[in-house]
């Protein structure tokens, strides 16, 4: 079979070569050149190398499976042939008089001349002074992803991405080098093609609890296939150019621009998803049995008759009832790129559709992009980057998330609905909850709720470059980001909560608008042989506006028209609207000085003026400085195998201004309603919203970074090591006020936090035989602690300078057994079958102080391991991602393993079959009788280790050389989430427990004409 395949390929190539020969016949005086192309390292033939005539790129061929080629060229000794192959350095050969040209190509290890995008410019990687992680499009996994966030997941050390919900388009939380803020945002600033965007979610939330669903990722509107590279600015030297927005790092996204050769690219993929993991619930019969056992244990009458235990009315798996057999994802992308005269263009269109594992959870998106730039004179270049997208989401109701678990939502099957209840009554109506029929809507009935949102985004910029002199250029940029989102939801009367009010419907609309005007000057000059100076100075002006409104009605005249005819709602509840604007005025400057290619110095300064802050603190100044020492260019340094050895030192300050608007002023806002008059009309007042706060300002992060870049053996092994310390001061904290002030709390800049950590990135390229093996490894360690709590109260058992996300909990020390001397223990009121808690302070009593630090909610270590193995035209790649040292509360297990509330009709895990009973002295699962001391829920048993190692992607791709039909072709299969190694006993250690995580199988292809 394998041999046959190769024969087929060989035949195809021969045929193609023949066709090509015929096509090129008759172009004047020609002669034939033939030869073999091999790998310089091992002499293996290279297959599919593109060979073109430089003077006429339409004349060309590719090497066959033995590395051989043959090409008819004009009979001119000056003609040049270009040999290019992905992953190898391109070679040019003048043909001279020979008719046989054998050539060997050298592997192209990531070159030090690679250009890295930094704020307001680019820099050669070798000249970098700061800590910047760069991810190129080639390194993206080909599997389907809806947002760029997935591409960042642990591929860059120090960037911790956590998917917060597995629903289609679900959100991510992103932290660069740890948490710096408690009340403000901890998300990095995103800059897309030079435009800093606001990453606030624009999709309206739902004011009605019956339609809650976690927010979607705001970056869904940016098509990841259009992205050329992602850079993450991590240290202060790199990020300080973004001043008051740089404290959490900066993610710079650069989209593709026109290529030199005209290319049309089409990619498509189709994926099937299955649920990766789920709980085992009690069967109908077991549920009835356990319920009766519990009643008997409490001395009550049995709830179910023996017949109902033997033959339960149903055996419902509530998850299956609301799930699809499989989720599906399909995507199509067509792009064209090229150059026509002085105009470079990149155009693309993309369609992405994801039908999730749970019914009614769908996402479909269209995006279009136009990137143009044109040299309109020697001195002036104009261009635009423009993208349009429309994303349609349909949502299900997750539940109102009260107390950590979700109630009354589609996932209540876990908690609230036992398996011995059928989905439908005999008459076809939805069954009611057996114990609390007026509170718990049937989970399947919630699928009748319609809840759809449409997000539209127009993001782009127009720019003009002026080359004023050889040294001085200026750039004017006008950028805009417009986001509009409309959401409509209707809870029909077939749903309990809808029936109670005659149908409940809501329409909301939000718009966000971000406008940037920017003028920058760049100056660059070489002074003598040894000195090079470049400088940047600029002014930027950016406004952010958001506004929205909502109408909410009940008791609709027609269920058919529902929210499409709001005038049909006989009850209109108070709606809302809002409008806010903030403004940021900034002056930026940067100086780079390079001495003899040995020392590179960078200094930046940004001044930011923001409307968000108090009258006394409108302007912030953010300086930074960095030095790189290229040791390998020193005369004293000589090494045969070290190509690069560079040390980087940096220091700087950045700020965080993402705290919301209107926090510094004394304002009056609308109150909640009250009733006035004999006619009992709704009336409203205006009351002070919050105390005036003139001193309010940004949070300041001071960061020190030291790093080394090393490259060995012609770049086959590259490593970067960084260590940093970040201290955030003026951290905003909420202080409780004396109530005589009239306000509960005030937000003030007072506390301090610190992060320190280290990062290692390693990359190795090996070749042996015909194999090329590229492996990448990155690991990051971060420790996040309080530095100053600024007098904010904390509990006795808490550590003053402990971890910010520290988890303090009772420690379970087993379960009391029948023979134990409970009366003389530290918890004399307990009974056999209850948790035994450790008396940590040895005071002879289990009290609230018997809690200790048992873990933290953010990982100590995050790591990624990437391996890519290619042999001829086959490539196998896999990406492992892991986090270590993170603890999370497993609400599901705490609730599902506790039979305490089973008489309320709550479902339980099958694990309760082995709970403690007098006849089954379990030492892990308690009896269910509530302890009056300690905590039966929030204790060390249910705070679990959520560390994991996940095979995020395995991809096998095949790129046959059929290049006369296509200039490149690739077909691949990909598995996302193939497996996860973890001690976590819930559904998924990363995304939490609501939406089941998926394993995704993808088949796709990628073709370029």
């Amino acid at each position, binding site marked *: 079979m394998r041999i046959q395949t190769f024969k087929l390929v060989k035949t195809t190539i021969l045929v193609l070569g023949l066709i090509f020969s015929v096509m090129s016949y008759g172009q004047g005086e020609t002669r034939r050149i033939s030869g073999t192309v091999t790998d310089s390292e091992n002499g293996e033939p290279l297959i599919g190398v593109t060979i073109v005539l430089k003077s006429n790129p339409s004349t060309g061929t590719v090497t066959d499976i033995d590395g051989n080629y043959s090409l008819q060229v004009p009979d001119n000794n000056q003609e040049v042939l270009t040999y290019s192959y992905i992953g190898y350095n391109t070679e040019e050969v003048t043909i001279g008089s020979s008719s046989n040209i054998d050539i060997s190509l050298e592997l192209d290890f990531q070159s030090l001349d690679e250009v890295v995008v930094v704020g307001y410019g680019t820099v050669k990687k070798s000249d970098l002074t700061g800590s910047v992680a760069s991810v190129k499009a080639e390194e993206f996994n080909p599997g389907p992803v809806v947002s760029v966030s997935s591409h960042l997941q642990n591929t860059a050390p120090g960037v911790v991405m956590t998917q917060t919900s597995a629903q289609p388009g679900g959100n991510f939380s992103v932290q660069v080098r740890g948490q710096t803020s408690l009340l403000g945002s901890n998300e990095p600033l995103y800059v897309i093609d030079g435009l800093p965007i606001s990453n606030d979610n624009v999709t309206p939330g739902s004011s009605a609890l019956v339609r809650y669903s976690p927010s979607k990722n705001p970056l869904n509107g940016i098509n990841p296939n259009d992205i050329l590279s992602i850079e993450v600015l991590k240290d202060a030297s790199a990020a300080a150019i973004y001043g008051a927005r740089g404290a959490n790092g900066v993610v710079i996204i650069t989209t593709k621009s026109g290529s030199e050769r005209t290319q049309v690219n089409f990619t498509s993929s189709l994926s099937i998803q299955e649920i990766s993991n789920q709980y085992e619930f009690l069967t109908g019969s077991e549920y009835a049995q356990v319920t009766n056992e519990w009643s008997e244990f409490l001395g009550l009458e049995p709830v179910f008759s023996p017949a109902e235990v033997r033959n339960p009315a149903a055996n419902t798996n509530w998850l299956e009832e609301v799930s699809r057999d499989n989720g599906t994802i399909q995507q199509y992308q067509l792009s064209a790129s090229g150059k026509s005269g002085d105009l470079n263009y990149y155009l693309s269109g993309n369609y992405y559709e994801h039908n999730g594992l749970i019914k009614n959870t769908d996402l479909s998106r269209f995006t279009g992009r136009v990137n143009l730039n044109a040299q309109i004179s020697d*001195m*002036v270049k104009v261009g635009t980057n423009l993208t349009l997208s429309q994303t349609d989401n349909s949502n299900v109701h997750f539940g109102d998330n009260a107390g950590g678990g979700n109630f009354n939502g589609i996932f209540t099957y876990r908690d609230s609905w036992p398996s011995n209840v059928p989905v439908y009554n005999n008459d076809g109506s939805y069954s009611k909850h057996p114990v609390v029929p007026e509170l718990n809507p049937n989970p399947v009935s919630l699928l009748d709720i319609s809840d759809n949102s449409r997000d539209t985004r127009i993001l782009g910029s127009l720019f003009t470059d*002026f080359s004023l002199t050889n040294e001085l250029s*200026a750039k*004017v940029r006008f950028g805009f980001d417009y986001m509009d989102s409309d959401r409509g939801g209707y809870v029909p009367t077939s749903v309990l909560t809808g029936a109670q*009010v005659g149908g409940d419907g809501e329409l909301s609309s939000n718009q966000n608008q971000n406008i940037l*005007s920017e*003028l920058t000057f760049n100056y660059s000059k070489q002074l003598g042989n040894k000195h090079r100076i470049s400088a940047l100075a600029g*002014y930027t*002006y950016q406004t952010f506006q958001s*506004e929205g409104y909502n109408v909410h009605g009940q008791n609709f005249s027609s269920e058919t028209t529902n929210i499409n005819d709001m005038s049909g709602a006989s009850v209109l509840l108070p709606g809302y*609207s*809002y*409008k*806010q*604007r*903030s*403004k940021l*005025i900034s002056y930026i400057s940067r100086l780079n000085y390079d001495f003899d290619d040995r020392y590179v110095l960078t200094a930046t300064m940004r001044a930011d*003026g*923001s*409307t*968000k802050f108090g009258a006394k603190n409108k302007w912030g100044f953010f300086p930074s400085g960095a030095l790189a020492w290229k040791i390998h260019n020193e005369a004293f340094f000589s090494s045969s195998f070290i190509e690069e050895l560079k040390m980087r030192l940096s220091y700087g300050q950045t700020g965080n201004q993402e705290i919301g608007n*209107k926090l510094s*002023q*004394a*304002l*009056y*806002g*609308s*109150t*909640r*309603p*009250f*009733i*006035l*008059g*004999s*006619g*009992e*009309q709704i*009336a*409203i*007042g*205006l*009351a*002070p*919203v919050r105390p005036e706060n003139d001193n309010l300002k940004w949070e300041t992060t001071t960061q020190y970074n030291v790093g080394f870049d090393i490259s060995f053996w012609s770049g086959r092994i590259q490593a970067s090591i960084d260590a940093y310390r970040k201290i955030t001061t003026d951290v905003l904290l909420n*202080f*409780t*006020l*004396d*109530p*005589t*002030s*009239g*306000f*509960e709390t*005030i937000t003030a800049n007072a506390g301090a936090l610190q992060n320190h950590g280290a990062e290692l990135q390693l990359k190795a390229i090996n070749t042996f035989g015909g194999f090329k093996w590229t492996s990448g490894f990155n690991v990051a360690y971060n420790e996040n602690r309080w530095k100053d709590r600024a007098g904010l*109260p904390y509990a006795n058992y808490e550590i003053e300078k402990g971890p910010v996300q520290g988890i303090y909990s009772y420690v379970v020390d087993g379960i009391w057994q029948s023979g134990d001397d409970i009366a003389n223990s530290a918890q004399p009121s307990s009974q056999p079958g209850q948790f035994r808690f450790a008396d940590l302070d040895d005071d002879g009593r289990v009290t609230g102080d018997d809690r200790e630090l048992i873990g933290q909610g953010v990982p100590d270590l995050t790591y990624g391991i990437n391996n890519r193995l290619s042999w001829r035209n086959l490539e196998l790649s896999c990406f492992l991602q892991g986090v270590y040292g993170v603890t999370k509360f497993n609400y599901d297990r705490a609730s599902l393993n506790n039979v305490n509330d089973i008489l309320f009709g709550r479902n339980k895990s099958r694990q309760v079959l082995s709970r403690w009973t007098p006849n089954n002295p379990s030492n892990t699962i308690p009896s269910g009788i509530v302890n009056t001391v300690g905590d039966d829920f929030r204790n060390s048993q249910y705070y679990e280790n959520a560390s994991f190692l996940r095979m995020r992607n395995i991809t096998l791709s095949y790129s046959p050389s059929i290049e006369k039909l296509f200039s490149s072709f690739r077909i691949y299969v990909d598995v996302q989430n193939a497996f996860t190694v973890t001690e976590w006993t819930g559904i998924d250690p990363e995304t939490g427990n609501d939406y089941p995580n998926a394993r995704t199988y993808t088949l796709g292809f990628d073709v370029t004409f």
Partner: protein
Amino acid sequence: MIRFKNILTIITFLLLISCDQSLEEDVFDEVSSANFFQSDQDAITAVNSLYVKLRGAGVRTTSDGQAWGLFAQGESIFRVNQDVTDETWTTWAKLFPSGSSGVLESFNFTPFNAGGGIYYMYRDLYEGVSIANNIIANLEDNSAVSASVKNQVLGQALFARGLFYYHLNSLYGEVPLILEPVANPFDTPFQASEEELVISISSDLEQAGQLLPVSYPSNEYGRFTKGAAYALLSRFYLNKKMWQESADAANQIIDDYSLSPDYASIFAPDNNGNPEILFSVLSIAQAGLGNAYLAASAEPDQVAASWGGDRVHQEFYHSFDPADIRRQLLVKTYTSIFDDSEITLDDEDGAVILKYAEDEDHVGPWASNDIVVLRYASVILDLAEALNEINGPNQESIDQINRLRARAFPGDPTKLLNLTDFSSKEQLRNHILNERSWELYYEGYRRDDLKRHGKFIERAQARGRNAQPYHRIYPIPQTYLDINPNQKQNTGY
């Protein structure tokens, strides 16, 4: 070259001048303090927020701890004045002894477990004070507001401030007295003396009584009235044993209002406009805007969407004359709405309180019965008590009490009191204390009344509670002691 330089210069220039360089924040959806109190409408809108305060905890949102508030069901003023007395309790106290009901019932409140009502009342009453202070200060020397509106708004704000301080003083004793807007929110004020508080509260209520109208046009019904101001003032003086002042305050309005002919109608779903009501929190059958007192007392199988729990003590139930129609609103047996079975409550748990009759159109627990805060009957009893304290048993006191007994025992003149029945001041005093509870139960009067009669602690001890003399007032919540070093904890805690 020159051309492009010129273009660039122009662009730079335009960029710098076209952009508004001011860093003052634009505000669109809220009103800056500089632009407020500029018209009659502003003043009225500002004073409206005080009415919101009476219903909900946070005037702006429901998310600050609890959604109910001073007079709406929940951790209300009523509860902290009732559940420590011989009048009412809640069965939740048995189920959750460490919950706030259990803490009240067992006299186990401490500065640390002052969560629930004891904590919320302190916080919310001061939030109300702050709103009132802000209105009063902004009306001073304000020429943008007309004199007539200014007087009405001022009257309402003064009444509200008096009401908030009345309860602060009653619940927590010698609390800080703040009468101006607080300039520095981090201020940590000292406590005021009892004398200062008495002067301030009585002066606020007296001024309010002079400024406020006896009644409002129908679209303004529900605002604070003259009657409310003098009723509260009379009650305040009574508590302070300033008998003559109490009688004078009562006499200010005794002829302005009248009793409702029918006792039950005062609390009925259509009680809006009932002549006896001096102030009520208006309610409609809508979430957050309704009356949930019935739902808090009626058993789940008694009235749909109820959760139950509030009861009168059995001794209190049995203290009534069985013929008293006021006891008809307390029930110990009912028919289940689920299966029509007859349910009889355990006698020891007392009786369910159906004072707020069922609203057929209720939405969930929310009913449209206005929540009665002050009514004319209490003024009558205040006057009767004050006159007895001044003169001993006297005909006017007897006549006033008989106005209520005539309504309680319709067509049965034998139940009316005679002056000759009372040989001593103390005998009539004791009767008035009982009469007050029969008339005013579940309306939040009992704690003050027992305290005034010196029986608050004694009766709690008689019920077997661990009550101590210092329990006459509640502790200052520890949270606020931690913040304010100038504040001393009440003695005993």
